[in-house]
């Protein structure tokens, strides 16, 4: 019984702030500032209605999801051949290259915020979804290569050789045989790319202003212009949990195995 | 060292088993004598690993008792049963040296460091592990690692029984022989009861003094390798042991005669034919080794001859029934029609799979 206690307490601890956020999101601003109550006394959906009816709000979500999806697609599809090369071949400078790629995962976004702004402004991509998607590649591609390389190293080389003997051309082999063999790896890599792109806020805020404004930017700017509208902020925050929850639901069976990154 | 008695063991992985099929172990009642070398032989899924886990105490049986000598150990946990086990793939403690691996069971039992030094040295010598004994165990080859897991059992002096769960599965073919003879040698030296689980008949027959053949959660026959070969108590034993296995042919019993496709066949257990009741399905079992060509007998058609080293394996056909027979290498055989004869003393009648027995004797 005591074994159950630890994970249970931990999950309760995880859920408390989320519960409080939800609690706040159903309260009116007056109630939030006036009383302390564990459940909303004047239950209201106004905060959510505002978000779903005001384009300035709901566009933020659409923009964020757009650049996250673009980034995930780019990161994984670029990382696939590279990870294959790293897992199967030795070539001049392979180890250094691999480490160099990883170093970009270690680059603090704060370091790059300003130069990114200038770079994407210079090539006329500022305030577009593609700009954020490309910028997030900086840390997501190295991560995807790293994860996929792990999974691919776990696939025996005989698979490749068999396919050549059976007369498969390389692209056909890669798509028809190899990719299904590392499907869980692709799933995990996509999950991580989605995760880091969805949660990263500094670059997405820096690189967008109006047209591709991310939900983070919407939240901070609204928070400062409309004063301290905690209920609205809580509702906006609560809604950002949903895409993540959906993604987790889809990968729930891979989480335990997938997080080991293929080779334990 | 101990005599192990299994009494009325049944085990099911379901919490509330109802039908017979729910049981992984249907019913087992057997005795392992002190110091004997036993093998549990059977196809995968026959319950042999479950039985092993029941003896070691990793699983407690749904019903029945286990006795080590005069002590009922059914409720005793693994550590106090004083058993040793070698698993399918080597289980070693990667971060320890070979020495520490071997010393681990002794240290856990609070043996003095001086005694440990002595015992480990002795065992390492026995298993050819002295070289590189201070190296990390993870650096050894698979067979070296398997020797370590074996050594961790041998090193203890209190071991009641040593069990092997298909220990050679991951070992290279050419090293299998070496390890197997090492095991045999070990058994002579340490004189512990050993139980060896395998699906490989060669391993079982060469290792054990007594082989228990398991099939669908039951021990269908136990005996010496010769007994199993010469007198299979169940068609499964006949089929599973021997290469190729026994020919099993459908037959009828009419007025005490055994009839195969309108031909009378003499069986060694002919007397039991009269006690076979009419509802049973009856079969005839004859090993390929005990069939020979003759001038008269069962007419067959010779289909194919395979050279299998020192013998020839001949595939013949009588009607729709394929029959295999083994002939000496030098015997000239031509394809086409011929006659064969079964050795009556090695031909058996089976009823519902089991060797037919005279009701008076049972």
């Amino acid at each position, binding site marked *: 019984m005591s074994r159950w206690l630890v994970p249970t307490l931990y999950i309760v601890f*995880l859920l408390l*702030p989320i*519960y409080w956020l939800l609690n706040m999101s159903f309260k009116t601003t007056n109630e939030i500032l006036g009383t302390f109550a564990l459940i909303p006394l004047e239950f209201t959906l106004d905060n959510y209605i505002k978000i779903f009816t005001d384009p300035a709000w709901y566009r933020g979500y659409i923009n964020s999801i757009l650049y996250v999806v673009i980034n995930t697609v780019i990161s994984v599809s670029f990382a696939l051949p590279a990870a294959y090369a790293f897992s199967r071949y030795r070539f001049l400078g392979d180890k250094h290259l691999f480490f160099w790629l990883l170093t970009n995962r270690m680059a603090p976004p704060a370091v790059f915020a300003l130069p990114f702004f200038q770079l994407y402004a210079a090539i006329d991509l500022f305030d577009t979804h593609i700009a954020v998607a490309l910028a997030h590649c900086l840390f997501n591609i190295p991560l995807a290569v790293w994860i996929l390389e792990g999974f691919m190293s776990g696939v025996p*080389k005989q698979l490749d050789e068999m396919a050549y003997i059976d007369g498969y051309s390389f692209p056909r082999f890669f798509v028809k045989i190899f990719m299904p063999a590392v499907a869980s790896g692709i799933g995990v890599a996509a999950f991580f790319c989605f995760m880091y792109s969805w949660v990263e806020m500094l670059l997405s805020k820096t690189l967008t202003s109006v047209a591709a404004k991310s939900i983070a930017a919407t939240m901070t700017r609204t928070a400062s212009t409309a004063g301290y509208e905690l209920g609205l902020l809580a509702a906006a925050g609560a809604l950002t949990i949903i895409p993540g929850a959906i993604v987790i639901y889809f990968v729930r069976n891979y989480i335990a195995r997938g997080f080991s990154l293929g080779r334990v | 060292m101990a005599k192990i008695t299994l009494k009325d063991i049944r085990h099911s992985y379901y919490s509330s088993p109802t039908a017979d099929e729910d049981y992984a172990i249907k019913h087992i009642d057997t005795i392992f004598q002190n110091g004997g070398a036993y093998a549990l032989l059977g196809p995968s899924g026959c319950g042999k690993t479950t039985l092993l886990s029941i003896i070691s105490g990793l699983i407690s049986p749904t019903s029945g008792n286990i006795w080590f000598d005069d002590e009922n150990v059914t409720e005793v946990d693994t550590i106090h049963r004083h058993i040793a*086990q070698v698993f399918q793939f080597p289980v070693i403690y990667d971060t320890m040296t070979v020495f520490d691996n071997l010393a681990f069971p002794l240290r856990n039992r609070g043996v003095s460091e001086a005694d440990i030094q002595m015992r480990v040295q002795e065992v390492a010598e026995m298993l050819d592990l002295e070289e590189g004994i201070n190296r990390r165990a993870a650096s050894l080859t698979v067979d070296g690692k398997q020797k370590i897991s074996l050594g961790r059992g041998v090193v203890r002096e209190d071991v009641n029984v040593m069990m092997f769960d298909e220990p050679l599965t991951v070992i290279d073919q050419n090293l299998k022989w070496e390890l197997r003879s090492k095991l045999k040698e070990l058994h002579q030296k340490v004189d512990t009861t050993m139980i060896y689980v395998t699906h490989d008949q060669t391993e079982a027959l060469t290792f054990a003094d007594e082989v228990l053949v398991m099939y669908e959660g039951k021990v269908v026959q136990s005996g010496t390798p010769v007994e199993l070969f010469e007198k299979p108590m169940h068609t499964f034993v006949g089929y599973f042991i021997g290469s190729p296995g026994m020919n099993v042919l459908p037959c009828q019993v009419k007025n005490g005669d055994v009839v195969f496709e309108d031909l009378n066949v003499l069986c060694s257990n002919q007397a039991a034919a009269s006690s076979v009741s009419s509802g049973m399905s009856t079969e005839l079992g004859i090993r390929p080794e005990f069939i020979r060509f003759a001038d008269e007998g069962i007419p067959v058609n010779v289909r194919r001859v395979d050279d299998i080293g020192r013998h020839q394996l001949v595939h013949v056909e009588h009607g729709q029934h394929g029959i295999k027979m083994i002939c000496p290498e030098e015997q000239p055989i031509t394809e086409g029609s011929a006659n064969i004869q079964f050795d009556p003393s090695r031909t058996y009648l089976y009823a519902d799979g089991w060797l037919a027995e005279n009701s008076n004797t049972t």
Partner: protein
Amino acid sequence: MNKTIKQGAWLFVIPVVVLVAFNALIPLMTVVNYSMQETFGDNVFFWEGLRWFEQVLNSERFHDSFVRQITFTAIILLIEVPLGIAIALCMPRKGFWVSVCLVLMALPLLIPWNVVGAMWNIFALPDIGLLGYTINAIGIEYNFTRQPFAAWFTTILMDVWHWTSLVVLLAYAGLSAIPDAYYQAAKIDGASRWAVFIWIQLPKMKRVLTIAILLRFMDSFMIYTEPFVLTGGGPGNTTTFLSIDLVKLALGQFDLGPAAAMSLIYFFIVLLICWVFYTLMMKNEQQ
């Protein structure tokens, strides 16, 4: 695995190299450029050499935020790694509840970082937050916007809340890859619970734990959004970590030269620590 030597494999890598280099090298050159020049606006630059580096390395402000950063990273690693392992050890191995546990635990990982900050702000506010209100109600004075200790406590608690799950998930993945035979063998060898942990579970988790520590180190060393939203670096500068300080310097004060020099020093420190870690890991793996 034996790999074939094939220089043509470069072809597979080029797209990634181009894309990452575009994102990494050009901005990095920009930073290097700034770090050695002085500007008074209008794109007029003056060569400054290594003066900014000297200035940053000698500035008390940098020292302070660096010390804060190291302290913060050390504390959260010391809490999250053992806690994560402990929780993973207590998790059930099979069944329906495993999925439920894992899904719930993964939830904080997918919440945008500014929302994490905002959520904890609301949660910890002394007058209307559940945490702040409760702590004050039991008689301890607590206000993270005024008391440095409370600010640190809240920031660390937030990070533990946010990231311990990553360690749990990785450790759990490592644990569930251990075959049952290891536990059975340990039982037969008479190993204690502690011996099983030290000699079986910990060695088998080594790889995933290395990944967990590396990821946690990198991410905590770069932490910006969550504490910025929660405390804004305050009270005073008490929770101003390196990234917050850097952004203040670059975007707040627009001191491009010192900010760029600080960026490079900052990046270099992360690289150095990760390189040491990476080499040790590789060395270990080859053994």
